């Protein structure tokens, strides 16, 4: 796994700090306007389970396995230079030499073991038993205490359901040992929540929350100041192993209004404006000096079905919904053609697990009508609980969908709701709702299975369950036979998208960032913003 590029980077990092001392520091200060810095006001991704959290955390914290966002989202060496399979349950990692934390400490195997310890992740939960929780909650959310907040172990266990622990082999080598066979362990270690921060940094912090707000990571930028809901100020970590960061000070500024973000960009107050709705792209690009970059990200927008609804209990009605949607028209009308319809709820970066010939149900109103006729649908009203643009273009999409469904005879009634509690409220009949589905790592178990499987949110909400699907989910999570896993995955898609639809995919979500044209910078297919030297100005490789 030690590539020539990685070797070059190591060599470069060894000499860069000395060179930089001799140079005048004329690196720029860059301000990035975002809608939200972090929903929980922390940079700990076990708490901050949001897309925006990944954006900020990735500037400060790193993982053993990194992802190359610009080359097929491949797994590449991060804080580990190499890794190998010992057996079906164990992966061994060799740590990168010369990596320094923001406090000057060198990355050690103890730091890695600590990051995946009971203290930092799992509490007293057991790998084989799945989720267990501490019953006492006197420590609340990590204030005034170093104790692990109660919500962290279940979140960590979802990422690592059967991780037994990290064994230290020698001063540069660690082994991740799973309680059950798991071919996706490397993927899990490359995903959010697997960040390595300094053990000494944690020891010296006043509380869990203080450390979650000002972690000591190894990333290209270190936290100078975090004013919740206002601004996150980062300074270049000049001893960064990947080369001297190109920006001296990076300011992540919360600007909730989209028009204010755009005006700030155009007036020169900000160099980047994130979270630009597609309908604003043209207005930004009318200014010759600016452009909007970005496109589809690792997240699919879906319409979710509640099969406990009397009408939706018949899978033919749910399939009729899926066939009535002209997805291409939605993309053209609302996304300026800048996103795509994925091949079902999967992503290209599933690699060998991608079912390449799989497709979403085709737009076929006649088929929808026929299915409804077979199901004996009499035009009963089906509720559609809706949030006000939680997702980009959500309300406009829903209005188009309702009209498309109406064309085939489906009587869908929008009910505006204010929050997720109201969306999930079981006291009144539920029908369809909006949702999204991502993938934490390049395998169906990284998203699809955890969302709709036995421990997933859909089943927890009581919307959908399928006995065969549940059984197959357990098999795909523990099987090491790659061909069998792929066959299982195909069957899972058949069940969830055709035979007993749990949802139907609309399109891939998109993320758009407006920026000055003269700044050379690439947008990742994710909320992650890469401000390393390799993605800035002349540092960008062709």
């Amino acid at each position, binding site marked *: 796994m030690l590539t020539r590029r990685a070797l070059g980077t190591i060599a470069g990092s060894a000499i860069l700090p000395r060179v930089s001392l001799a140079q005048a520091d004329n690196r720029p200060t860059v301000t990035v306007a975002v809608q939200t810095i972090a929903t929980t006001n922390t940079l700990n991704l076990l708490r901050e389970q949001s897309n925006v959290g990944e954006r900020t955390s990735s500037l400060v914290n790193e993982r053993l396995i990194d992802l190359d966002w610009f080359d097929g989202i491949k797994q590449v060496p991060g804080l580990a230079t190499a890794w190998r399979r010992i057996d079906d349950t164990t992966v061994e990692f060799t740590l990168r030499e010369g990596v320094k934390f923001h406090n000057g400490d060198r990355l050690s195997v103890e730091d890695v073991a600590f990051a995946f310890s009971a203290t930092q992740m799992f509490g007293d939960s057991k790998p084989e038993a799945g989720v267990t929780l501490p019953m006492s909650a006197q420590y609340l959310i990590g204030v005034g205490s170093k104790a692990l907040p109660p*919500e962290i172990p279940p979140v960590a266990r979802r990422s690592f359901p059967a991780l037994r622990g990290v064994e230290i082999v020698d001063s540069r080598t660690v082994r991740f040992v799973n309680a059950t066979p798991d071919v996706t362990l490397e993927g899990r270690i490359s995903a959010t929540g697997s960040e390595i921060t300094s053990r000494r940094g944690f020891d010296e912090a006043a509380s869990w929350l203080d450390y979650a707000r000002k972690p000591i990571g190894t990333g290209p930028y270190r936290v100078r100041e975090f004013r919740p809901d206002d601004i996150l100020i980062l300074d270049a970590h000049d001893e960064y192993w990947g080369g001297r960061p190109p920006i001296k000070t990076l300011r992540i500024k919360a600007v909730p209004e989209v028009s*204010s973000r755009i005006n700030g960009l155009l007036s020169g107050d900000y160099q980047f404006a994130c979270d630009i709705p597609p309908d604003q792209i043209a207005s930004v690009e009318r200014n010759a000096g600016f452009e909007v970059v970005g496109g589809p990200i690792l997240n699919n927008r879906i319409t979710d079905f509640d099969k406990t609804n009397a009408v939706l209990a018949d899978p033919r009605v749910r399939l009729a919904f899926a066939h009535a949607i002209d997805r291409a028209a939605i993309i053209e009308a609302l996304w300026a053609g800048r996103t795509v319809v994925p091949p079902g709820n999967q992503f290209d970066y599933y690699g060998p697990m991608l079912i390449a010939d799989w497709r979403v149900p085709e737009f076929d109103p006649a088929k929808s009508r026929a299915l409804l006729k077979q199901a004996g649908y009499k035009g009963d009203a089906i509720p559609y609980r809706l949030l006000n643009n939680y997702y980009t273009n959500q309300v406009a999409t829903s209005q188009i969908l309702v009209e498309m469904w109406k064309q085939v005879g489906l009587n869908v009634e929008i009910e505006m709701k204010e929050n997720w509690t109201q969306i999930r409220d079981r006291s009144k009949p539920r029908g369809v709702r909006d949702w999204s589905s991502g993938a934490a790592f390049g395998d169906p178990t990284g998203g699809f299975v955890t969302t709709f499987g036995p421990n997933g949110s859909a089943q927890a909400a009581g919307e959908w369950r399928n006995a065969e699907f549940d059984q197959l989910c357990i098999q795909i999570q523990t099987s090491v036979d790659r061909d069998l896993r792929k066959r299982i995955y195909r069957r899972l898609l058949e069940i969830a998208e055709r035979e007993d639809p749990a949802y139907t995919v609309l399109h891939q979500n998109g993320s758009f960032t407006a920026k000055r044209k003269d700044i050379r910078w690439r947008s990742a297919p994710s909320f992650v913003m890469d401000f390393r030297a390799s993605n800035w100005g002349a540092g960008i490789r062709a």
Partner: protein
Amino acid sequence: MLRFLALRLARAAFTIVLVVTFAFVVLRMSGDPALIIMSPEAPVEAIEAFRHAWGLDQPIWVQYLSYFSAIFHGELGQSFRDGRPAIELVAERIPATLILTIPALLLKVGVGIPAGIHAALHRNSTTDRLVMAGAVAGFTIPSFVLGLLLVLLFSVQLGWLPSGGQESWRSMILPVITLGFGGAGVLARFTRSAMLEVLGQPYIRTASAKGVPWRMVVRGHALPNAAIPTVTIIGFMVGSLIAGAVVVESVFSWPGVGRLLVVAVSNRDLAVVQCILLLVATTMVTSNLIVDLLYGVLDPRLRAGAGAH
């Protein structure tokens, strides 16, 4: 006078209790903070743990009694998101808001009242029409529209002022103008109509007929009598000093109490919302109380009336 004061204090306290109770009930019935703060994707066990940790699994009346008992012990609760005392979070943001709202109030008073007086004294003149056109524009243009227009002109086109944030004193200029313009318009309009009404009173004619210089008539007789409606409006403006800039703070990304309120409401950070509402209600009620007392100072008849009851 004491009875007058006691009655108003009791009414003020009752109003505050009503506001706090209403906010408590509405906030708890409109969404589960656990789902909002932890995201709907969080495992059920984590959400349950969160609810238990914050007592949200208790019946609402138990939560309500605990909350009120805590208030009487000086505890306004802890933020769900920060774990810090809500009052501490709010207190941190108050200076940032007052930095905007106090100059804006001075702008409203400093521009609105003189403009209203001038318009009234020169009724139907070109100046009067200009002042009234400005006043109508001031209170009809929504602050978010005005704010964006000012940003487009002074930040995007001219590049003179920052478009938002709290970087330097220059960052204050556009939000203060945005806040002040509408209020100045309201004050100008009320002052003008109050002045016109007073200027038509017999005692003004009498004073003029007795040869009192016009300037003295205006200063000594017209202005004090026209002050009551203006003082009432200023009272409302003072009352909204703490949370009167919610929209403007959002447009200009200004980290004040208004922004905190928006974020706290959307996250159902109940203690913070309740703390802000308690402060706003207290400020508004206190301000109204002071206005009530000022009425007595400005108009001795009201004092006498209060005593007669």
